[in-house]
C-alpha cells in the first residue's frame, strides 16, 4: 500500500482539563474521500484545525507527503498543499466573489500566478468548477448560504491543494443543494485532490466517502468502509446515546 498522503500520529489537544483530541492516529490515502464523523463535541473540527495549522497540538505529529507539518503556521500548511474550509463560512465580505478567490489563487501552493490577470483567470477556473462563474462580480455578502459555502470551497481550491479539508460543508443546505455539493466534491476528487470531510449528514457520507473514521470524545472508535463503520455498535450508541438532533 502506498504511503498515506496525510498521516497523524498520536495527535493530542487539551483545553484546560478537557481532552479534545486524544492520541489520534489517522491515515489519509491519496485520492480518497475520507469521512470524519462523530457526535457534537467529538473533536472533529479540532482535529481539522490541528492538521491545518490553525491550532497546535500538545503532542503528536502531522505528516504531509512525507514532510512534518506539525506546529507550522496555517499559511505554511496551505502553501505546502493542505487547504481547509471553515465550519462557519468566512467570506471576505468587502470583496467580490471573484476577488475572494483571487486571494486563494495569489497565495497557496506554488507555482503561483504572476499578476492580477493571471490570478483572476485561475480564480475564474475555480469559480466555474464550483458553479459560481455567473456570480463572479457580485459582492460576496450578497450570496446565500449555499453560494457562500461553494465560495468557501472555490477559494480553498484556488490554493491548488493536494488535500482539501471540508468542515461540515453540507450543514444548513437543503437536499438539492446537498446533492449539488456532493457532486462537486466527487468532481474535485476526480481531478486528483484528496478530500477529508467532517460531516453530520450520515446519508451523504455513506454515498460519497470511500472510507470513514468515527471519533467520540476525542478518540477514534471505528475506521473502515462506510458499511462497517455506520453499522458499528459503538458508533450507533454514540449517536443515539447523545442529545444529537
Amino acid at each position, binding site marked *: 500500500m502506498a504511503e498515506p498522503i496525510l498521516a497523524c500520529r498520536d495527535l493530542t489537544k*487539551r*483545553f*484546560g*482539563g*478537557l481532552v479534545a483530541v486524544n492520541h489520534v492516529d489517522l491515515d489519509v490515502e491519496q485520492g480518497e474521500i475520507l469521512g470524519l464523523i462523530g457526535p457534537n463535541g467529538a473533536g472533529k473540527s479540532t482535529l481539522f484545525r490541528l492538521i491545518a495549522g490553525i491550532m497546535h497540538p500538545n503532542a503528536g505529529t502531522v505528516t504531509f507527503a512525507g514532510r512534518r507539518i506539525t506546529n507550522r503556521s496555517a499559511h505554511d500548511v496551505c502553501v505546502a498543499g493542505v487547504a481547509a474550509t471553515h465550519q462557519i463560512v468566512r467570506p471576505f465580505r468587502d470583496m467580490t466573489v471573484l476577488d475572494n478567490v483571487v486571494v486563494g489563487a495569489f497565495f497557496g501552493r506554488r507555482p503561483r500566478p504572476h499578476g492580477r490577470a493571471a490570478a483572476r483567470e485561475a480564480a475564474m477556473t475555480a469559480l466555474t468548477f464550483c458553479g459560481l462563474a455567473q456570480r463572479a462580480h457580485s459582492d460576496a455578502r450578497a450570496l446565500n448560504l449555499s453560494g457562500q459555502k461553494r465560495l468557501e470551497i472555490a477559494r480553498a481550491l484556488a490554493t491548488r491543494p493536494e488535500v482539501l479539508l471540508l468542515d461540515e460543508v453540507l450543514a444548513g443546505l437543503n437536499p438539492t443543494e446537498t446533492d449539488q455539493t456532493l457532486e462537486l466534491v466527487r468532481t474535485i476528487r476526480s481531478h486528483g485532490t484528496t478530500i477529508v470531510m467532517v460531516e453530520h449528514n450520515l446519508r451523504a457520507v455513506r454515498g460519497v466517502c470511500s472510507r470513514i473514521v468515527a471519533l467520540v470524545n476525542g478518540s477514534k472508535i471505528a475506521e473502515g468502509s462506510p458499511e462497517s463503520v455506520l453499522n458499528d455498535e459503538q458508533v450507533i450508541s454514540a449517536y443515539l446515546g447523545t442529545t444529537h438532533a
Partner: protein
Amino acid sequence: MDLVSTLISALLVAGLYAAMSYGLALIYGVLKIINLANAGFLMLGAYVTWWLFTSFHVHPLLAPLVIVPLFFLFGWALERTLVRRVLGSEPIISLLLLFGVWLVLQNLAYVIWTGDTRSIDTPFIDATVNLAGIQLAVPRLYVFAMGVLVLVALQLFLTRTYLGRAIRATAQDRDAARLVGVDVERVNGIAFGIGIALAGFGGSLLSLLFSFTPDFGRALSLKSFCIVVLGGLDSIVGVAFGALSLSLAEAFGVRYMPASLQNLISFVVLVVVLIVLPKGIVGTLRALRRG
C-alpha cells in the same frame, strides 16, 4: 521606614488608580467595547468639580453628589444615541467613535477652560495626618478609602441586586441573558451610564490630588488600560489587583529611573502583559484554576 512609606504610598495610589479604572472594566465587560473616552470623562469630572468649587463654592467632597447622576445621564444618553449604533460593527468602529468623543471632550475643555493649569485649594487638600509616625496627606487617604468603598459597593451591587445580576448575566452571555428575560438594550444603557459615572467620580477624586489641564487624560488613560488588562479586562476585583500591581511597579521603578519616564512603566507593562498574558494576570489565574 523608607520601604514602608513607599509601600503605603503605592497602596494609596492604587486606590486612586482603581477608582479611575472601574468604569472601563464595567463597560468592556457588558458592551465589549473599549471606552477610549474614559480619560476624557475623568478629565471632565475633575473640571466640573473645580468649576462647582470656584463658581458655586461647592466643597469638592460634595461634588460627586452632582457629578455621579449627571455623568450617569450623560453616559446613558451617549449610549442610546451613538454607541448603540456601532455595537454590532467591527471593534475598530466603536474605538474610533469613542476616540472622537474623547477628542470632543478634551478640546471642548480647552475651549471652555483654556489650557491653564487648574487646581483646587481648600484646607482639606492641605491637611495631613500622622499615622504611626508617617505623615500622610488626608486627601490621599480619602481617595484610597473611596477606591475601596466603590469596589465594595460595586461588588454588592453586582451580586445582590437584580439589576446588578442582570448586568453580570449580560456580560457573561448576552443571548442567554436575553432568553431569561433580561432587557439587554436597557442593561447596555445603564451599564454605560454607570461606567461614565464612575469615570466622572474618579475624575472628581483626581482633582483632590493633582492640578490638571485638559490634556491630563492621556497619560492616565494608558495607565487605566494597563490596569484593566492586568486585571483581566472585565473583572472589577481584577481592577483592584491591577491597580495595586501597577502602583507597586511604578513606586519601585521610580527608584531606578528618572521620574519623567515613570509613565513609560505603565506602557511597557501593558505591552508585555498583552503579549505574554493576553488574559491578564487575573484571567490567567482563573483559567489555570479551572483546568
